[in-house]
């Protein structure tokens, strides 16, 4: 399911989501420090989402969680599943404007935060001064 990634970091998302991934691309993604940071962030994000779900606190649209299918008469389950799959396949085949773009995996949503080694505060002293003048973008006048 990881083919066609535009962002090389998406293979990490796929891995964290438990999907099969291309080992070469996965190694390549982890070869970058950004990829390793992303793996940690993605893992922590999913951990947080799971812990929230477990504690009853969660988002309106929680991350997908695998559900256990309770025992039911097997014949009924098989029949319903077959009908749904068949209907889905027929609909997919007959609906004319389903595009491949709509099937693309979602973009990664982990926040990539730059973390400079030096503290941001107190504000460092300026080493040189550059003065700028703003010019109007529209018709409301100029500087």
């Amino acid at each position, binding site marked *: 399911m990881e083919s066609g990634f535009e962002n090389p970091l998406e293979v990490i998302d796929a891995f964290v989501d438990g999907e099969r991934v291309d080992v070469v691309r996965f190694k390549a993604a982890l070869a970058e*420090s950004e990829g390793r940071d992303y793996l940690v*962030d*993605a893992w*922590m*994000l999913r951990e*947080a*989402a799971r812990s*929230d779900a477990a504690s009853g*606190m*969660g*988002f*309106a*649209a929680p*991350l997908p969680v695998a559900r256990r299918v309770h025992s039911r008469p097997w014949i009924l389950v098989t*029949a*319903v599943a077959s*009908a*749904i799959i*068949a*209907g*889905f396949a*027929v*609909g997919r085949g007959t*609906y004319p*404007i389903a*595009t491949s773009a709509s099937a693309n995996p979602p*973009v990664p*949503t*982990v*926040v*990539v*935060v*730059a*973390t*400079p*080694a*030096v*503290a*941001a*505060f*107190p*504000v*460092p*002293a*300026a080493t*040189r*001064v*550059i*003065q*700028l*003048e*703003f*010019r*109007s*973008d*529209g018709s*409301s*006048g*100029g*500087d």
Partner: protein
Amino acid sequence: MWSSVLVAALILQTAAVELRQAPPAAAAPTADWLVVVATPVYQPDGGVTTETTSLPMAGAGLVHMFARRSVCAPATTGAAEPADAGFGWRVASQIISRSERDVVVSLDWRRLWDGGRKVSGGPGGTVQLTLHPGDRIPLDLITNASPRADCRAVALGLEVRLGRAAVVSPTPASMIPIGATPGGAKKLDAEFWLIHTLPSGAEQVMHQAVRVPLAGGTFGFAPMSVETTRGSVNVQLTGSLDRYRAPSGGEFLVMSMTRLVTGDGLPPAGVSSSTGSVIPLPLPTEVPIFEITGPVGGGARGGGGGRGGAARVSGGAVAAGGGAVAGGVVARAPQQTPAAGGQVVARGGGAVPVAVLLEGHQFALKLRVTQVN
């Protein structure tokens, strides 16, 4: 029975396809609004220093906003918990929807550190907010129980704001030195401090750190509120850093900034203006400051080239087409008077220069870059 199930599946499939093709909503970031999490540190003199970070344009996000030994030095990390936090929060987010007018976001926040140590069962909550441009929603406040000489702050807050994302436009050729090629050598972490100096002398500072890829990146601050005798206006600064290499091998940055002023008595879309400058890639120990003159810092004087303004600098090479290049030590310009020109905005019965409108509020932007290994 089976035929009805089949029909139901067909309907579901059709609905699913139509949903995928519906006008972009949560998954497609068409609107250019950024949800910003901020931790303002309130000083007794009215000054405020604020760490900020932007949430993802869509989907889920997780950040930690914290301070270390005192509340006076706020910082932020991504999903990984900081090991040395003494005060702060974990904020998980989920963008529900966005439109041209607002963003709906679900936030799960919790205070994880207080009094210099990790706490369990701290204040927290899950809220769904519909944020409009300029909104500023406080979520929590940690009071500074033991002010010291090196940190006299009153409190550290946690807020959510909505700001405009930077609109990237191609760098005009006039600003690019002859023979330069696009792209930098290594990724950068760029830090920006937007400094708003009030007429009283108190400073309100917003900090932001962004990862800058080889081609360049953008930054954007949530609006800063300016209270004037004519009413309240918001000043928002966004911008971009484009990276180039000179034929000699050195790297330089094309910095573009857009300032949007909105508020009482101004046109509904606000008053937008822009400027730009070209500077050599600063060393990690260098901190250039871009002082914004003209409509914000005072009346602007004539002249200037390039797109939307010019840097008043000395030293450095001259860009193709006459654009200004900042390349060396720059002398401070003399104080300017609000009446000397400035962007003019129609307010009520007459035209008022933006500089006059802002009544002496000064703005400047500091920059520090470090290479990412």
